[in-house]
């Protein structure tokens, strides 16, 4: 059978599916996503210095082929999370990436270092939350700031650092800067800012009005971003956006991703969607005569 493991820099994912940040946001569920769901790696909820309750309900709503969420980066604060949740997550025996959502370089640095000290396999810098001010897209769309954050964090850490971007005009610039500053991989893309209005209530559904669109609706936009980034970067890419089945995962791989994140599909499919996607990729590789995932990464180019 074809080889499903993939190397993202020095990290080895047991298969190319990774739980996306913010989904199933605590240690026990991260473990379960690995052991029972079959994820090849998991990312934690994005952590901040302080405890955050997030926005009041409704915080998430369905739309055509997608979800819009404005959870608002709720988390118990990084210290609490790293103490209580990370150890549970690590019992899943796959790479655990700790997602960090700082509002300045110092916050990114503090949380990332603490994550390393607590045994994280790597950190994922969330440079892209579309519905939280100061922690979001403003950051990822400012290539200089991206450079500074990645450089500082890289300088302080031994474990790999992934930079996660959203959809911005300056995505390629920012990703180049992240690569230049030493990022080990780029994750693209986060959710896209969106709004749902209930026509009977005549009000926005989310308490925060704006949220981030995820799911199949954004898939072809995310594939485009990965395709563009693959043309200019040398570090590994991880695709995020609308993976629901092996077909959408393979599309990302062909566009240039070495792994794919799965988020919203957890609401639509059983938890073993990771397993299903991985098995589907395996069958695809086998049928087409490939021996490993790596052989098809970026295959759609040139």
């Amino acid at each position: 059978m074809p080889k499903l493991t993939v190397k993202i820099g020095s990290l080895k994912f047991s298969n190319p599916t990774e739980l996306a940040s913010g989904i199933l946001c605590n240690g026990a569920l991260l473990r379960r996503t690995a052991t029972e769901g079959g994820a090849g790696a998991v990312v934690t909820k994005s952590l901040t210095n302080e405890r955050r309750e997030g926005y009041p309900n409704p915080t998430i709503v369905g739309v055509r082929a997608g979800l819009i969420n404005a959870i608002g980066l709720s988390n118990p604060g990084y210290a609490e999370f790293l103490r209580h949740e990370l150890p549970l997550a690590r019992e899943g025996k796959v790479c655990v990436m700790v997602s960090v959502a700082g509002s300045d370089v110092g916050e990114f640095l503090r949380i990332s270092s603490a994550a390393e000290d607590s045994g994280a396999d790597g950190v994922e810098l969330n440079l892209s939350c579309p519905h939280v001010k100061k922690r979001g897209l403003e950051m990822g769309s400012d290539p200089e700031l991206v450079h500074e954050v990645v450089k500082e964090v890289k300088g302080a850490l031994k474990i790999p650092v992934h930079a996660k971007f959203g959809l911005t005009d300056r995505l390629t610039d920012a990703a180049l800067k992240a690569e230049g500053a030493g990022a080990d991989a780029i994750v693209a893309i986060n959710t896209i800012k969106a709004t749902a209005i209930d026509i009977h209530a005549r009000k926005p559904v989310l308490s925060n009005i704006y949220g981030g669109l995820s799911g199949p609706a954004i898939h072809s936009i995310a594939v485009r971003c990965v395709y563009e980034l693959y043309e200019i970067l040398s570090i590994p890419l991880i695709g995020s956006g609308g993976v629901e089945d092996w077909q959408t995962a393979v599309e990302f791989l062909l566009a240039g991703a070495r792994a794919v994140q799965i988020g919203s599909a957890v609401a639509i499919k059983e938890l073993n969607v990771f397993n299903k996607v991985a098995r589907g990729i395996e069958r695809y590789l086998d049928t087409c005569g490939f021996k490993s995932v790596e052989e098809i990464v970026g295959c759609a180019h040139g």
Partner: protein
Amino acid sequence: MEEKNLEKSSNHLIHPDPVLNPESSGDSKFTHEKFVFKPAKIEKITVESPKVKSFYLKANSLDLPLPGQFLMVWLPGAGEVPMSVSDAGGGSIRITVARTGSTTEQIHKLEEKGTLFVRGPFGSNFKLDANSYLLVGGGYGAAPLIYASKVLSRAGKKGVYAVGAEDSSELLFTHEARKHGLEVYVATENGSLGHRGLVTDIMNDFLRRFKFDSILTCGPERMMYKVLRQGLKLGIPVQVSLERYMKCGFGICGSCVLDPIGARVCIDGPVFDGKLLLKTDFGKWKRDPSGMRVRV
């Protein structure tokens, strides 16, 4: 029960009828449509107690909820909260709302012909395939139980309905339970009706007098913990309907997690097999909206 098989085993609690519950098999549980709110006209409001009102919602476009399942109920401007279904049928769904804070207070202000916005039904349901039932409710926990009692009585099954409250005015659905042919026992903390004290005090009493195959319980977590202990001591399976802070209600956010097994109360629950709960923080820890662990 192996924790590895939680996904499968929790499906045991989901109604296996593919017509009633198309999500129970296959690999798509839901479509994105299911997470869209639908307007539900309030057809009737009944006052169940000084603090509790029932709302009869016209909800033809929703799937028929099973006893134990819940809706996410949104009142624009006031918030969204999970609410158990306390009756359903004929295109109408009843929810029973205790006034406990800001959102439920706004809901209580609504009048007939008003509109609530709902999505669901979500979650697992009570398994109703035993023969004789003890239903133990506390506070608005009576809501899912009274719906279960209706289904039980239609299936010709017998049962006892035991509820507790502070004051007799707050005892819910005793009349309706009798109508469903259940024997009713009550306990009030101030002694205004029935046993003075907690409903769990009188449980051993029935457990000695009747032979139950199954216990269903819903109410304050500490109460349910006692019910579970007592039931299991006598070897009677207990199904427990849990409550947790819920952001999504459909299994994606993780805020309703039951540690350390990682069950999601919104989708693996809210109805759990009691034995499973003994391996968990049930009765001890829950999580606040930030995901911080707090004492029950």
